[in-house]
């Protein structure tokens, strides 16, 4: 069971308090009607699925209830950083959060 640091509660909590919600930084187009079929299909279905660092959404569903983002290494399953929803993907210069 992973330990995940909720960036709102600022504390590491067990994975069972959280719910995974897919890849992060896929914004819903502001004017969907103006989006082409191909672009809309990409928004709906195309994901990066990387081997390595993955920016992804989690929700502290059995805690504060809020959505946030995490950088997780899909090879080691290590969560290197968590940050609030709506903020840009950070670099990894700062000490890693969530894991040790």
């Amino acid at each position, binding site marked *: 069971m992973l330990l995940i640091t909720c960036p709102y509660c600022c504390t590491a909590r067990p994975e069972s308090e959280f719910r995974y919600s897919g890849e992060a930084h896929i914004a819903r187009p502001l004017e969907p009607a103006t989006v082409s079929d191909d672009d809309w299909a990409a928004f*709906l279905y195309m994901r990066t699925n990387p081997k390595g660092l993955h920016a992804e959404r989690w929700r502290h569903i059995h805690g504060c209830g809020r959505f946030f983002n995490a950088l997780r290494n899909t090879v080691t399953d290590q969560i290197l950083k968590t940050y609030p929803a709506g903020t840009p993907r950070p670099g990894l210069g700062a000490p890693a959060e969530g894991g040790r």
Partner: protein
Amino acid sequence: MAGLHRTNGGGRVDRTKRLSFTFDGKAYEGFAGDKLASALLANGVHLVGRSYKYHRPRGILSAGAEEPNALVTVDRGRGRTAPNLRATQVELYDGLVAESQNRWPSLAYDFGAVNSLFSPLLAAGFYYKTFMGPRLLGSNWAWHKIYEPLIRRAAGLGKAPSLPDPDRYANRFAHCDVLVIGAGPAGLAAALAAAEAGARVILCDEQAELGGSLLSEWSVEIDGVPASSWVDEAVRTLAASSRVTLLPRTQAFGYFAQNFVALAERLTDHLGNPDPAAPRERLWQVRAKEVVLATGAIERPIVFPDNDRPGIMLADAARTYVNRYGVRPGLRAVVIAACDSGYAAALDLHRAGTAVAMVIDPRANGDSGLAGSVRAAGIEVQIGATVTATRGSQRVSAVQIGRAGTEGRASTGEWVPCDHVVMAGGWTPSVHLFSQSRGKLAWSDDAQAFLPSAIAPGQAQRSAGACRGVFGVAAALDDGFAAGRAAVGREPLGRTFKVTHDITDFRGIAGSHGAGARGSKAFVDFQHDVTVRDLKLAAQEGFRAIEHVKRYTTTGMATDQGKTSNINALAIVADHLGKPIPEVGLTTFRQPYTPVTFGTIAGASRGDLFDPVRRTPCDAWAQAQGAMFEDVGAWKRAHYFPQAGEDMHTAVARECRTVRSAVGMFDASTLGKIEVVGPDAAEFLERLYINSFQKLGVGRCRYGVLLNEAGFIIDDGVIGRIAADRFHVTTTTGGAARVLHMMEDYAQTEFPDLKVWLTSTTEQWAVIAVQGPRARDVLAPLVDGVDIGATDFPHMSVKAGRICGVDARIFRVSFTGELGFEINVPADFGADVWEAVWREVQKHGGCAYGTESMHVLRAEKGFIIVGQETDGTVTPDDVGLGWATGKGKRDFVGMRSLSRPDMVRSGRKQLVGLLTADPKRVLEEGSQVVEGLRPPAGTPALGHVTSAYWSEALGRSIALALVADGRTRIGTRLNVPMPDGDVAVDVVTPVFLDPKGERLNG
């Protein structure tokens, strides 16, 4: 009973406490502190089991968790038989009842031993070659009728108990600064060092006594006292600290991410008369800041022909039985020593009074530092010799000594009579938990073993002592102490322990030694009966990767996971392929380290606690009425209310008739309910649902349809506007949590600009639906402060009022097509209001109805159920709900997807009604709909039946179906092929009753 096989004194058994036990029905005695294995050996019993495949007689190989042979079933009473326990770990108690396994009719005369005669049939890959060919699969009667039952009977382990487990199991979470796994010299020293520094320490060990290998030492002294006394003092020191938790009888069996370690603690299995209320075992889930792995090492057998006869055991085991348990396994021993532990065993056996006939060292240059002492004791030592054959049917009686020659061939020589053979093949560091933690291993030529090299990211751990190749008591103590210091961030003190009589050479040899004569078998994996020949055959047949060899030969795949066999198997395969060992690779170590009971893993999650159950406020009433229930998600819902003599069909027919002719009441409390509040509540719902909400008047309701972004229906429900900034949203029973999660997602991440708050109110409201032409008459005397007349309270409206004096939200809605109301009252008043309504309903000849009638009544009206008429690929238009889409909306969740090419093409499946040509025939839900009669196999279906019922109102069967281009097929006849023949159906519009809605608006 200080008989032939007990030493005169010493050891850690209590010779004043005699315990009686039975093995295969025969009575024996042992001492407190004995294991079942030591007590059996003390009684001269070596034959304890039959091997898995060949049913060969097997004895006790080891003295620990790695035991592959001595598997027994312990019977602790009804439902409490535990199979496949290692006799080397079973603690003796007075009255213990143990049975051997895998033998018939008896251990000594086992019918299955004839398997040995057919052993060429059972070689590596036998199953694959003989039975897995495509030619044979499914059609081979001989396999199904003869071979499989025979093999299943002949090859196997103990029998699982068939009664429910009456024991209780506990579960505990724990946190600590340092978790030390293993309480041998390294582990004890690590725990002492960490505890000294003030850390919170958990020290666990699978044995009843802490001390590990130190408990088996006789002459070793640590800091001036015997090892055994040093252990007692160390344990006293640790136990005295309030910050140290000592967990004996506790196996660390799984090591997961971020220092999360699972431990299984045995609490009562060692007791003759445990408190029946006490838990049998406890699962510990430990999150440790630091882990010290001090898991030690396991001795390897030496692979020589017929090395599996009872009486042949590991040197470490022989030392343990003699030194710790005061048991002489044999009277005349031959020792095969490829490292110091063999020489030490010879000295220990000699001291205890066993005649040691000979020590043979298979290493050409073998020259142990202990050889001099052994010779001085008058024991002959032969260097460069090996065992080429053994004799003895149920116990070894002699070994043949050969000179190790070139190419592993040995020239055969004299036969040496003996009843005990001790083998010391070298030691394999126990890297199982390290490897489970995803640490990387590297082959060490120096240690001739795989050792921990890189720790996985996210794990904070260190290995200490033999499990990282640091052998010997002194080195392990020093290494453990330094690891304990490091785990709490302290510099090593450079503390060294003064140890006498230590041994240091543990490397040994690996692989096969001496080819046997025809018909002999040199065993590598004792538990799965895998021989050198099997491994060579696999290599000859082209298997190169060790993972493939493992699966083909099944080596290392038994319940012991190859603890004694993996390195020998690897060395044999590497040798045959002419490759160095690290190039052949290592098989994966998996949890659990030793078998764990299902009880321990399940804990309290069984019976009523297996799955939580949700019950409505009206549940007790329904139970008292004799309702039948069905599970809907975690909810128990009243399915139907049978009266005396009624089956489900007649009860549902009566309930439907009563609703349509008079009135019925229905518990709708399970409906999901979300309070959506805020200045932007209407705008928020407008963006989520396909419908319009901005212009919905206060006090009015709308049937809302919710899509996902892909444009498919995922939920529906009535939404009422309670105030300008407040909506009462209902969802499907199963969709409540999902819808709230989705709403929160959009509110937080896509539309954070909207001022809206969401609260789940599902459990706050009890919901009583009153439906039928007399519904208003039922409620009229109960409500006050609210006009429920037709003019003032039309269909699809909501009012706040009181019923039976309780504040209520009263909806005028209908899921039956009749005049209907849904009364929402605070859940605490639900049962009382239900009773009051029930009294009125009875006055009007009404009834309570369940979910089955609810389904029939809505199907007669063509109302869909999300998840029944929809399956995640259905759009609003597909099920005829295009009308619900708000006019002129620019956007809502899923809207853009509805104009994608695939969504507007012809041929989409659309909701239609089906009427069977035979009105009495009720279709099967899920059956396929096709065009022609008697369709050949492979004919694509046009669609499928989603709902099918007997309609009491129409006096015939009805069905809903999703059919390709269904709406253009209305008026045509299709076919539903069934096993008993075709069923002709006419396609109709999906509204069977009152299409104009006159009853609804009454």
